[in-house]
């Protein structure tokens, strides 16, 4: 270990802090300029990469067909911002990644559109109550919708049941959970006026269920030919997906330098270069006689 001229306080603690949040170890050491530089540069690069890839570029998966070990190994060094990806992959139950899985009833917002209902086609916004059809059959759900349907004739209050077609998994890298079903109900206050059509839209997905969620190449209960998460991400983002991965990987690798700097101090003394420059040139070799 070198003897740095900078006061590193407790270098091991500083390195641990620098790992958790880039720059935090340097703030602890009162190296404010470096703390700001590391946090802005490294976190800025990481979140820029995440943003370029629409939040889908940082995840971990080490199953053989969808391995994501090496990219995540680089991203891991950013610390706290990258750690949820590890938790998503290792701590969530496998059913959290199943389509059409509703283990217990819950109520949430819904927005989307109704189609195939003749002159009552339009935009829908309201609340949906989802529940399993039987307590021991969580892959068969049922919905009860109360919403406002905006049609050509104006807004109408509707209510009715939603028969399932598809519901995205609980955990996926998007803040919206896509839902498709068949709606059958009526206009509120007009019992004779039935509404029936295909309902397509989304319910919100929490940050915990979407941040760092793995992209799935294939699921056990996929229908043949259905688009996978990875297909969809590449289709949506094109080369921006890989660009986002590169940004986040570089951010992680740069933080290794910052962690080492917190642990050992800078590689060179600041006056080392000056002293080398001001040193007189070496004596010429004596002439060989």
């Amino acid at each position, binding site marked *: 270990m070198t003897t740095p*001229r*900078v006061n590193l306080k407790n270098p091991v603690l500083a390195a641990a802090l620098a790992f958790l949040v880039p720059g935090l170890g340097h703030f602890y050491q009162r*190296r404010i*300029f*470096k703390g700001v*530089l*590391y946090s802005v*540069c*490294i976190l*800025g*690069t990481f979140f*820029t990469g995440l943003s*370029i890839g629409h939040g889908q570029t940082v995840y971990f998966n080490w199953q053989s067909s969808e391995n994501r070990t090496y990219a995540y190994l680089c991203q891991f060094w950013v610390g706290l911002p990258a750690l949820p990806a590890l938790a998503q992959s290792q701590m969530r139950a496998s059913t959290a990644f199943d389509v059409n899985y509703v283990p217990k009833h819950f109520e949430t917002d819904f927005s989307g559109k109704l189609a195939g209902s003749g002159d009552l086609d339009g935009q829908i916004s309201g609340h949906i109550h989802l529940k399993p059809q039987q307590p021991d059959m969580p892959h068969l759900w049922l919905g009860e919708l109360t919403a406002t349907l905006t049609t050509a004739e104006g807004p109408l209050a509707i209510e009715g049941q939603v028969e399932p077609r598809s519901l995205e998994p609980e955990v996926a890298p998007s803040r919206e959970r896509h839902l498709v079903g068949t709606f059958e109900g009526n206009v509120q206050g007009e019992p004779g006026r039935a509404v029936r059509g295909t309902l397509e839209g989304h319910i919100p997905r929490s940050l915990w269920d979407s941040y760092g969620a793995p992209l799935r190449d294939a699921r056990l209960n996929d229908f043949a030919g259905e688009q996978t998460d990875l297909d969809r991400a590449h289709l949506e983002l094109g*080369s921006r997906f890989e*660009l986002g991965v590169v*940004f986040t990987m*570089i951010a992680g690798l*740069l933080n290794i*330098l*910052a962690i*080492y*700097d917190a642990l050992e*101090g*800078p*590689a*060179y*003394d*600041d006056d080392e*270069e000056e002293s080398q420059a001001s040193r007189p040139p070496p004596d010429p070799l004596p002439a060989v006689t």
Partner: protein
Amino acid sequence: MDSLFLLAVGNGAWSRIWFAIPLIVVISLVYSASRYESPPRILRRAGRISVTIAGFMLAVLGVLIFLSRGV
């Protein structure tokens, strides 16, 4: 040559190569900060490293454009 040049400087709404500029700056700053402690020295060295990396990349781009003539 035209297609490679367009890919490099801008084809449509955005071009991938411009994303290299913030990366070059960030890499230079963090690398220099891990070498030195004095802020002016860090910034000076980062500037020099940025120019070196950008120059090297431009030279490689020039070689690729030259090699892709007529393709």
